């Protein structure tokens, strides 16, 4: 996507996530008020009080889920703000894990994100990095048998790197067999991304994404 189109999409999406938060805030306060009113009623509560409370706790749980989703969507939308920005790989991996979990689950697979407490930052196009991580996971889930998982791990070595791996025995095909070309395509895209990573003094640089075949 062209940078100005991506920025436009990001800006509109980020604005909508704010609106969503307001909707969720109103739902949460309204349920909270109902809980307050029921608590005020004390012993004189109506016969279905427990069912009401259970239903309200379900609504609250969904509000929490909605807040989490809109926060992540907001983060994703902001990845289109700039074509070069310092990105913490742990944040990018966590976001990718979250975005990919549902489509992976539909294929009967899992996505595991392993992050680091210490920031591992690279100067990169945040949208391209996010796209690359997402597409890698999407393609890899196509290689695996149901029940398997894709692992995204932020490594701390001479480079700031996301290592993407799968369980070898869960693969339907051999990485050096018919799927070799697709692996090479992924690695070529990763090299392209690395070429765009800006080298900054005091920052590690080098391969941004590495695949364990």
């Amino acid at each position, binding site marked *: 996507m062209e940078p100005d189109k991506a920025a436009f999409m990001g800006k509109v999406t980020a604005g909508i996530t*704010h609106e969503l938060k307001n909707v*969720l805030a109103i739902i*949460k306060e309204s349920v909270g008020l109902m809980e*307050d009113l029921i608590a005020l009623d004390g012993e004189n509560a109506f016969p279905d009080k427990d069912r009401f409370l259970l239903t309200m706790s379900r609504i609250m749980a969904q509000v929490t889920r909605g807040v989490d989703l809109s926060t992540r969507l907001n983060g994703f939308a902001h990845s289109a703000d700039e074509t070069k920005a310092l990105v913490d790989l742990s944040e990018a991996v966590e976001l990718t894990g979250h975005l990919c979990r549902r489509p992976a689950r539909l294929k009967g697979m899992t996505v595991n994100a392993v992050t680091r407490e210490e920031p591992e930052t690279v100067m990169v196009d945040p949208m391209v990095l996010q796209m690359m991580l997402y597409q890698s996971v999407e393609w890899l889930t196509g290689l695996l048998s149901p029940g398997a998982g894709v692992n995204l791990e932020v490594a701390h070595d001479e480079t700031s790197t996301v290592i993407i791996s799968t369980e070898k025995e869960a693969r339907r095909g051999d990485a050096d067999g018919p799927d070799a070309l697709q692996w090479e395509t992924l690695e070529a895209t990763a090299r392209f991304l690395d070429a765009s990573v800006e080298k900054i003094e005091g920052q590690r640089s080098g391969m941004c994404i590495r695949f364990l075949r």
Partner: protein
Amino acid sequence: MQDWKVLLVDDEREFVSTLAERLSMRKMQVQVANDGEQALKKVETDPPQVVVLDLMMPGMSGLEVLDRIKGKSPEIEIILLTGMGGSAEAARGIHQGAFDCLVKPLNIDKLIERIGDALKKQSGMAS
């Protein structure tokens, strides 16, 4: 909580009226404003101890309201509300003298706790 005077400022009418009802049930004296102009008028006519102020409002922004309240009545403590934590506006608000910034949807117990903390700070400044 009975003597706490709080002004809630948010353009989301249903949010702010429901929150006001919940705080009133806890015996706080609560006023509501739906924009910056209304908020400034209420601060002048019946000053609250604490203002709970949304950052993103049409017309006068939360930061501008914060600036104007702090310029006239620096003793009033202001708790900002934002949709997204860690935003640049929230950081600017704290730099401009806001007591704290909470993320929407709110945890009411956390809000009450922070209003209490703001009042403690205020009474410490007064003594």
